[in-house]
């Protein structure tokens, strides 16, 4: 009986390709931007619920019916209606796209995704910040997954790499293009700074990956707990180094970063990160990480250069962590060494292990899920830090390697047209 019910639900949703869902979501967001304000007024809500009404529901239980009705009428029903009605057309379109080059199809989907996010974020600055932080979290989680998941080393140095990236990028932009108390007058006009920002970020990533050598070289001989301690030590070294460097503000931190980490910038970098990491882990060179993790001596005997493989993994992971750190600095526009401490480490590790080891899609789900959850449960205050850890424990008990572990991220498979289950049988 129960299975039958599940089957029905699954059949109900399975007929729509990714394109349909994306356009449906775009439609819902468009609807919100058009009628969201008057609509929430009718339902007695103070303003448009920013996070699917969850925050409002938890804050003021009296508004639960209103918030619920809002989510139902603005998001749920339009999306379901849209996807049901257009399923056939969408499948036809997905089929057409499936025959075109993959990059074109992927770019089109990403464009729809971007406009959906952009429109959604226009409602409030809070949403904009949330999306940016979420995209940065995806980059961080994925880059840590390369080291902890794909290569199976327990590295704790990620906040250290982020800190390196954040400070390098900040010094680059603040020092060159801004009038600042610490660095004096701008050396170059701020107008061209926006275009040179990517160079600053790449520089940030490069410095972070040079820093990664400090952890990568000991990893030739040590594994497991010992390497975890070495990497933890690296994180603390970076933190106290920055705390004692008065040039970059010491423990007071560094502020005044220009607002260059706009949504399109962060979005493009996140896509680049997912794309290159997925490319890498799907190649035989990238799979060498798995071979090193599962049986290092066998990898060595099968001509795999294990030292090079470890160096690549650490430096590549650190590169993206550095870029993510640089973006974070320009999203928050203020950083201090305390940002990159144990708290950050716990957060990134939780996202990796929650989402799933050895899986690109798992990392995306982990980062998005963890961030949404932690924002939605914010009104619960102290109880939030009971619920989230309990959830993590449950995930670890029932799915020890994470929600979606050891899965290939096959873009074509995700975007392809979906037949109804009935037709498939």
């Amino acid at each position, binding site marked *: 009986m129960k299975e039958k019910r599940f089957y029905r639900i699954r059949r109900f949703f399975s007929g729509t390709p990714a394109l349909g869902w994306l356009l449906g979501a775009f439609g819902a967001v468009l609807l919100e931007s058009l009628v969201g304000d008057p609509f929430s007024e009718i339902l007695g809500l103070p303003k448009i619920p920013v996070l699917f009404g969850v925050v409002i529901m938890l804050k003021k239980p009296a508004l639960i019916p209103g918030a619920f009705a809002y989510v139902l009428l603005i998001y749920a029903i339009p999306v379901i209606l849209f996807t049901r009605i257009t399923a056939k057309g969408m499948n036809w379109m997905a089929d057409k796209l499936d025959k075109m080059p993959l990059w074109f199809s992927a770019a089109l989907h990403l464009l729809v995704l971007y406009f959906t996010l952009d429109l959604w974020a226009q409602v409030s600055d809070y949403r904009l910040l949330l999306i940016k932080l979420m995209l940065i979290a995806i980059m961080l989680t994925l880059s840590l997954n390369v080291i902890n998941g794909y290569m199976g080393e327990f590295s704790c140095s990620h906040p250290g790499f982020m800190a390196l990236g954040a400070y390098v990028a900040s010094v680059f932009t603040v020092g060159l293009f801004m009038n600042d108390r610490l660095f004096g007058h701008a050396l170059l006009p701020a107008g061209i700074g926006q275009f040179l920002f990517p160079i600053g970020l790449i520089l940030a990533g490069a410095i972070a990956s040079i820093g990664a050598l400090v952890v990568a070289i000991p990893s030739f001989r040590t594994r497991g707990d010992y390497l975890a301690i070495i990497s933890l030590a690296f994180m603390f070294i970076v933190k106290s180094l920055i705390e004692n460097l008065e040039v970059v503000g010491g423990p007071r931190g560094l502020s005044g970063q220009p607002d260059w980490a706009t949504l399109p910038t962060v979005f493009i970098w996140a896509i680049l990160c997912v794309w290159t990491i997925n490319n890498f882990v799907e190649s035989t*060179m990238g799979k*060498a990480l798995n071979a090193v993790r599962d049986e290092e001596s066998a990898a*060595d*005997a*099968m*001509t795999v250069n294990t030292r090079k493989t470890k160096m690549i993994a650490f430096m590549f992971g650190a590169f993206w962590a550095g870029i993510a750190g640089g973006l974070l600095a320009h999203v928050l526009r203020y950083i201090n060494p305390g940002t990159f401490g144990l708290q950050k480490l716990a957060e990134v590790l939780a996202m990796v292990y929650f989402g799933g080891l050895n899986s690109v899609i798992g990392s995306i789900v982990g980062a998005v899920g963890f961030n949404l959850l932690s924002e939605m449960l914010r009104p619960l205050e102290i109880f939030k830090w009971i619920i989230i850890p309990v959830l993590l424990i449950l995930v670890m008990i029932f799915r020890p390697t994470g929600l979606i572990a050891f899965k290939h991220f096959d873009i074509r498979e995700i975007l392809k047209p979906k037949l109804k289950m009935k037709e498939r049988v």
Partner: protein
Amino acid sequence: MPLLQVKNMTHFFSGLRAVHNYNLVIEPGEIHGLIGPNGAGKTTIFNLITGVYTPTEGEIYLEGESIVGMQPHEIASRGLGRTFQNMKLWRHMTVLEHVMMAHYSKLTYGLVGAFFGTAKRYREEAEIEKHSMELLDLLGVAQFADQNVLNLPYGVQRKVEMARALAVQPKILFLDEPTVGMTPEELVGMMEVFRTIHREFGPAIFLIEHRMKVVMELCEQIQTLNFGEVIAEGTPEEIQRNPKVIEAYLGKEEVE
């Protein structure tokens, strides 16, 4: 010039002498056996030649070039393939991925190809995939290509490991007890695999084995090892008759 030559190799494990004054000459295409009781140092000799350990003393030449002190992967890519006593398969990888991985040293697309997916990368990956499938086909395990190795029967896992070692395109193949724990039927299949490999690729084979049937049937030259020293060397018939070998395996005959 011999394919592989080991001269006066001695190795100590912090004071314990594991191998003493070991010499070996293998010509191209030759099948050479290494037997001896448990703990005699057979696997240590394998690990010394393949570069896992660096010998305390002695010289090793592969095709006339000294390989002492090289990393295992450097030695392997010069044409030394090996299998392991306990197989050492990669638990999260499929059969095809195993064999493709052993082509690592032949990949030339580099990091740019790996990160950005260049045309060269897809061409090379397709090439090694084709070659891997041919190897799997030859050993009769091609139908398992997309399966995870851990789900397969023991005999198939052994063949996968063999295909992986062959993907290195070895001039000499080191086999460490390749038939251990096999049923009689699997053993017959494995012997057939050895013959196929030798016929198709003609590598020299250096074999550690406990089953006398296998050793006596395949090997042209046999060394017997005891406490890290070679106590007898010769053709299978000579070894079988050698009193020292009998003593090492069965103990000394009591003289009344």
